[in-house]
């Protein structure tokens, strides 16, 4: 499986993402600079990593969403290329219009770094199928702007179409309807605030994030 990680100035989970991808796929991920204009051909997954791209200035993800590589990413996502945005990556994908809603300041106004118990809301996506019957997983969160917002109509649609991939078991940040991660309508783009790439190594306390990557490989965890 051929994967790539987009690197913005201020990305800081890019290496973590690459390590996780290599661990799961056995192949190093290509690191793609935000200023490039095109993604390589033949990719099976693009990951938009966490961090503070452009310092989160103005709005989290706003400036990165307008960088050159994103135009190609939007185009390729439209053609069905799987895209996984984690944390800041989720923010970038909403700002780029690939996913619905917006991520606002946490309701408690503070940065939160905690282990978050989650519910796998639908195992019927290409990012969650490896979880199978497993509903409860714990994946760490670390963000300041993870408070998912969309209007009621959009939320109803997301829920109705099975686009809510993960929910918080104990809402940490005020997200509408406890939403922690959503997919696009076509199901090839997932954005989530929790960091699955931080939960793939038993030595670091937990492997509940593996399912996201294994799902993409087509396996079961």
């Amino acid at each position, binding site marked *: 499986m051929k994967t790539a990680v987009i690197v913005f*100035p*201020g990305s*800081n*989970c890019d*290496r*973590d993402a690459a*390590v*996780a991808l290599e661990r799961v796929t056995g192949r190093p991920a290509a690191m793609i600079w935000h200023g490039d204009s095109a993604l390589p051909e033949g990719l099976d997954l693009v990951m938009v990593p*966490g*961090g*503070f791209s*452009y*310092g*989160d*200035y103005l709005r989290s993800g706003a400036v990165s969403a307008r960088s050159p590589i994103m135009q190609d990413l939007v185009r390729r996502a439209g053609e069905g290329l799987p895209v996984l945005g984690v944390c800041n990556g989720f923010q970038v994908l909403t700002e780029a219009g690939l996913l619905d809603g917006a991520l606002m*300041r946490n309701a408690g*106004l*503070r*940065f*939160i*770094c*905690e282990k978050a118990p989650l519910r796998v809301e639908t195992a019927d996506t290409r990012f969650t199928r490896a979880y199978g019957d497993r509903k409860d997983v714990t994946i*760490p969160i*670390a963000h*300041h702007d993870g408070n998912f917002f969309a209007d009621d109509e959009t939320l109803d649609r997301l829920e109705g179409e099975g686009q809510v991939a993960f929910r918080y078991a104990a809402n940490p940040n005020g997200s509408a309807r406890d939403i922690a991660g959503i997919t696009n309508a076509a199901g090839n783009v997932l954005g989530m605030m929790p*960091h699955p*790439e*931080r939960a793939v*190594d038993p*030595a*670091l*306390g937990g492997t509940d994030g593996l399912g996201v990557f294994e799902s993409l490989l087509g396996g079961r965890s």
Partner: protein
Amino acid sequence: MSEINPRYADGIDEQVALEHVTAEEYETILTELGRAPNRVELGIFSVMWSEHCSYKSSRVHLAKFPTTGERVVYGPGENAGVVDIDDGEVAVFKMESHNHPSFIEPYQGSATGVGGILRDVFTMGARPVALMNALRFGSPDHPKTRQLVSGVAAGIGGYGNCVGVPTVGGETNFHPGYNGNILVNAMAVGLAKREGIFTAAAREVGYPVLYVGAKTGRDGIHGATMASAEFGEGSEEKRPTVQVGDPFTEKKLIEACLELMTENAISSIQDMGAAGLTSSSVEMASSGGLGIELDLDHVPQRETGMTAYEMMLSESQERMLIILKPGAEPVAERIFRKWDLDVATIGRTTDTSRLVLKHKGEIVCDLPLDPIGEKAPKYRRPYTEAAKPAAVDPKSIADPADLGAALLTVMSSPDMASKRWIWSQYDRHVMADTVASSEDPADAAIVRIHGRDKALAITTDCTPRYCFADPREGGRQAVAEAWRNLTAVGADPIAITDCLNFGNPERPEIMAQFVGCVEGMAEACEALSFPVVSGNVSLYNETDGKAIPPTPAVGAVGLIPDVAVRAGYGGMAEDMVLLVVGETAGALGASIYLREIEGREEGAPPPVDLAAEKRNGDFVRAEIRAGRAKIVHDLSEAGIAGAVADMAMASGAGAKLAYSGELPLAAWLFGEDQARYLIAADETTAATIRENAIKAGVPVEVAGIAGGDAITVNGGHALDVTRLKRANEAWLPDFMAGGEVMAAE
């Protein structure tokens, strides 16, 4: 009196001179120069001879620290200490204070403190991999405390999280002694290849001097200059003294510098910290025995009309000075442009041993470097040691009716309560190598070396109560506890950095605290083969003649050869035996128990027996390495009771403590005797550990058995673990919710 005439030049008069340096120092300048300094030159002397840059009150005492050792690659004198961690790799670390700025503006002050200490580490070619922070706030009752806690935590998190370096641990105390002067000490740890280390000393003549990073503004220009006539035009508003940090620029600066470091382009490199362009250029040139010439017109500037004085004294953040190898300019420019950072060649090295500055075609400064650096003032300030307080006789302390209630009170007191409210704002896991951090039951943070099985153990420690009661003993204890913390997770302690926070050294009783602590630390470092490789001194932490408690914070680093073989204090389970390693004498002087339960802050601190410390620690480490001791906690504040409470809360299990010796129960439970550890192990393993201890001549005692839902003592005094945990977790959030606190940025 000097013969030099005129005594003053460039519009400087006696008053302006005294705003910069002391009368005596001004005479020295006249003598050294043979003429009156101009304003730029006076400004340069003023910052270079400040306590902060020259260490004029502390230098003679810092020399007492042992600074060499088998693993020491670079000790004090570089931007950060460097120690060997095998396989051609080194760990690079240092701790620094940002006390005053954090009191004025807690968010930006603490944020820029983190930024500064990170630069000290990556300047040396190391990728920063961990941050720690040691915080001391005033009394929770003080009206400013809540806002300061909120701002400092948000600032540290705001900077570290954005830069993408995990903040893995630290410590937080509250005491009225810090009401007017909080302490914000930040430590950074980095990793590098041994042959990939960069230093600051200029080596060759005629090499280009490169300025990189953020533009220079009028940030934080020396307070002493505020009243000077140079700022004639312009309002108060034009002169912010607080620097604003830009972690995004810092992140880019880290990546760009580390990238350039792989290009064989850098001759030497230095961050611009306190006194910015002045101290970086002076230090680079003088440590290499060369001179340096800068053309300030080329300095990237954020504001218009900046004077030479302002540029040289600006403390704008996120800037570095690099001496390039000739011809390397294009590669440097390419890399810094790619990262959207300013880059400019602003001068070159010379063989004159002078600092020469040009601005708008004129020479605005021409100073010999020797007097600025080598000949900086060095004071042997007088000191008078206070009488040592008497030891507290454990038998004089009556047992309370309910020890369980006392334990609950102690564990939910401000110093002992969980600091989750603070550290949950820190990204502890970015970089994906954090094995143990604030949330984990371990006495030191553990950060795996990327791609390997080995790991660093990191801790910060200091017990200001002890230092106040007896500086020497307190200094020894701070080092001993740091060493014990590293040992308790199974690490080989390597070396320390420090941040020596004290009051006004011109007062003999304060100077005595400083000298006592330093000498005590030095003794402990010597005895434990635990050298000092870097550090920082922060003096004048006092308000209205009231000094802070002496606070020599110690930051320590150790090596765990195989991260799978380590210890923590979670996982205590039914029927495990609790062993106390080390001798319990019931030392309650200056203890948490005495303060929280008896309302007294008095008595001699626990004595530190360095030989016992070493023997007991080496024993425990060997038991961890042998795979027998897996659940280990060092005994420190609140003694056996505090450690059992921690283990119980981390494990969700109770413990039945039993004691039938001579000491009153409270002294046995809460005494803070040093050189001790608590180990929990199944019965068979515990028996082996016990036998081994006896064979090794290490005191060992069975303190009880794990089990149940409560902590009990001799069958009574039950304290439910769930209740304990709730109270321990609740104090800080409840305190913070008790008043209005705005989002800090």
